[in-house]
């Protein structure tokens, strides 16, 4: 008895330790993201700006305030949102390779953006003035509209398609159909518009200004608030919908809230940053592996700290500190993410059950 209690306490203190470690990493990455970039700003000056002190060099203050601070906050929020969305999808579909976009949220957003950037040639400049002058906010609106349309469709279809696997395949099919429409648009578009579209599809944390960041933060916090109601339901779904039902849960409502939360989270990120891959697949697995649990009461806080850290690390690498160059965020996440997913698959083949959802 004492022995078992001890081991339970041991696990708990171990986890607190890990949380502390990741919180420290988040803070460190936050500072590094602000200090490093095409110009290097010393810690003292960064601290001065953050504390709103006088006497900081004006150009540095401008860079920190209007470029690096919103970017690092965007990175953190996006990382958390994508991880949270991916975790919910993996649990709900009981599929270790499910990601936030498995139901076609990003396809919808892509279609919205493609119609705005590429489609303007067809619709006689309906969007053209907006696309040229309003800049990034137009794209965010277009992407939100696309993501929102898919979200509505998923929630609607989710009401009467009871089988999760069917829902999954419907999402995939929808994704293929929208990609085809995007391809048609690309095929008939001028090169510079195609370029503008591909820039968006690479993903970026840099295009988000303070106004957009506020909107994005509110939407993401709302999605996370929904997620906080779900750990019990998600844990029950680990055993499957039938068990969840016989344990007194309202599975229909549960599924609705999961779909809503996951889609809002991934939709918000895609709208403002473009389709960002791999974080949503990889972070939930990292969290399960590092914290050695499938219990969502622990996993949800875990993916918050790990998601923020991974995303901020990707943002830092994408800046290529010390150079004038910048990599698209998707290049960084994919370069690290693809080998990771390969590793997951190979490890599963060797029978590591810890990679079950």
């Amino acid at each position, binding site marked *: 008895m004492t022995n078992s209690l001890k081991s339970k306490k041991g696990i708990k203190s171990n986890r607190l330790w890990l949380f502390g470690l990741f919180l420290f990493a988040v803070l460190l990455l936050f500072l590094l993201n602000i200090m490093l970039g095409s110009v290097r700003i010393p810690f003292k000056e960064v601290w001065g700006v953050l504390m709103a002190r006088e006497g900081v060099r004006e150009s540095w203050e401008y860079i920190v305030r209007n470029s690096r601070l919103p970017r690092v906050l965007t990175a953190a929020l996006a990382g958390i949102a994508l991880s949270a969305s991916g975790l919910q999808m993996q649990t709900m579909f009981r599929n270790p390779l499910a990601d936030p976009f498995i139901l076609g949220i990003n396809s919808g957003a892509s279609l919205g953006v493609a119609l705005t950037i590429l489609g303007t040639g067809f619709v006689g400049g309906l969007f053209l003035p907006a696309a040229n002058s309003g800049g990034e906010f137009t794209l965010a609106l277009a992407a939100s509209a696309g993501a929102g349309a898919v979200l509505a469709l998923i929630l609607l279809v989710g009401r009467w398609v009871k089988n999760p696997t069917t829902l999954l395949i419907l999402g995939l099919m929808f994704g293929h159909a929208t990609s085809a429409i995007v391809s048609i648009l690309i095929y008939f578009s001028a090169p510079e518009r195609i370029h503008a579209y591909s820039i968006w599809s690479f993903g970026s944390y840099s295009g988000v200004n303070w106004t957009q960041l506020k909107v994005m933060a509110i939407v993401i916090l709302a999605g996370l608030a929904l997620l906080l109601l779900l750990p019990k339901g998600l844990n029950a779904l680990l055993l499957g919908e039938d068990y969840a039902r016989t344990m007194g849960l309202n599975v229909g409502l549960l599924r609705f809230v999961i779909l809503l939360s996951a889609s809002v989270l991934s939709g918000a990120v895609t709208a403002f940053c473009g389709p960002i891959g791999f974080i949503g697949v990889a972070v939930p697995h990292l969290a399960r592996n590092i914290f050695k649990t499938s219990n969502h009461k622990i996993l949800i806080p875990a993916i918050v700290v790990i998601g923020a850290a991974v995303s901020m690390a990707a943002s830092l690498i994408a800046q290529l500190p010390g150079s004038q160059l910048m990599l698209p965020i998707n290049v960084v996440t994919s370069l690290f993410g693809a080998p990771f997913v390969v590793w997951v698959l190979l490890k599963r083949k060797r029978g590591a059950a810890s990679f*079950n959802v």
Partner: protein
Amino acid sequence: MPPVLQTSALKIGYKNGSRTPKIIADSLDLELRVGELVCLIGPNGVGKSTLLRTVTGLQPKLGGEILLSGKSLEAYAPRDLASQVSVVLTSPISVGAMRVDELTAMGRFPFTGLFDRMSAHDWDVVRQTLEVVGVDKLQHRYVHTLSDGERQKVMIARALAQEPRLMVLDEPTAYLDLPGRVVVMNLLHDLACGHEKAVLTSTHDLDLALRHADRIWLMDEAGQILQGAPEDLVLNGSFAQIFNRAGVHFDPHSGTFDTQSSGINPIFLEGQGLALIWTRKALHRAGYKVEEAWTPGCKRVRVEDQGGAYLWHAEQDGQSETFPNIHALLQRLSA
């Protein structure tokens, strides 16, 4: 006290969109009381799972009535239903890193709030449950590191932690080895008579069901269910009637299935004790018809007990030979 489960004129099956529903069984009148272990038995595909899913509320009935503790199944709120009935389903679960105590604690879901805060009482129930089922030593192990038998016990512990009046299990012994099956059936019997539960389980283990069940529900391909004590069903020929198919024969003496002996070559066997029984089985398998009396010209085998060791003497065509084991005997006979 009303029975835990009572159905009248229950019609089960699948609704098939706008087409006519596929009816699996019609007018089922069943009853299950606290303290009873009932085994649901029947050939594959007769609809055992459908019946179990219907009486647990996982699947809508097509007609009739299901009463749980005297109240209509449909009148229960999901949570109240969960504190009446708990289940163990056929398909093995595949969770990753989850400990045995965490999984068992899920059985408390109907009693905890939205944020699943476990009270001291909830943990007490979990602890007692683990002890009753006999998996308290495993409580900090991860579920995926357990053997099939251990995992099935943990699933039973989870169902028991729901403190239901009725436990419904769909082929809980399906993936287990023989000792594992016996352990699970013993446990279910113990839960029924020692812990005030009504237990309903489907199984293909006829001999275990005959030994452990208080009553058997025998389901046939027409969706009829014959009810009774296992012994009654043997004596009135119900088993033989439902399970007898080409080449398989229910032996009412042993309560087991035999491949029908199609022996034609007569052979006379003499001897006694255990060795005689097993020699007879071997000769049956080899296609011999074992005779009780010797007739001239017939082959003849005599088992000699030498105090723990045995010798087999065979006489055919006027020659006599001795063999150290049954294998050698059979080889010589078929040569």
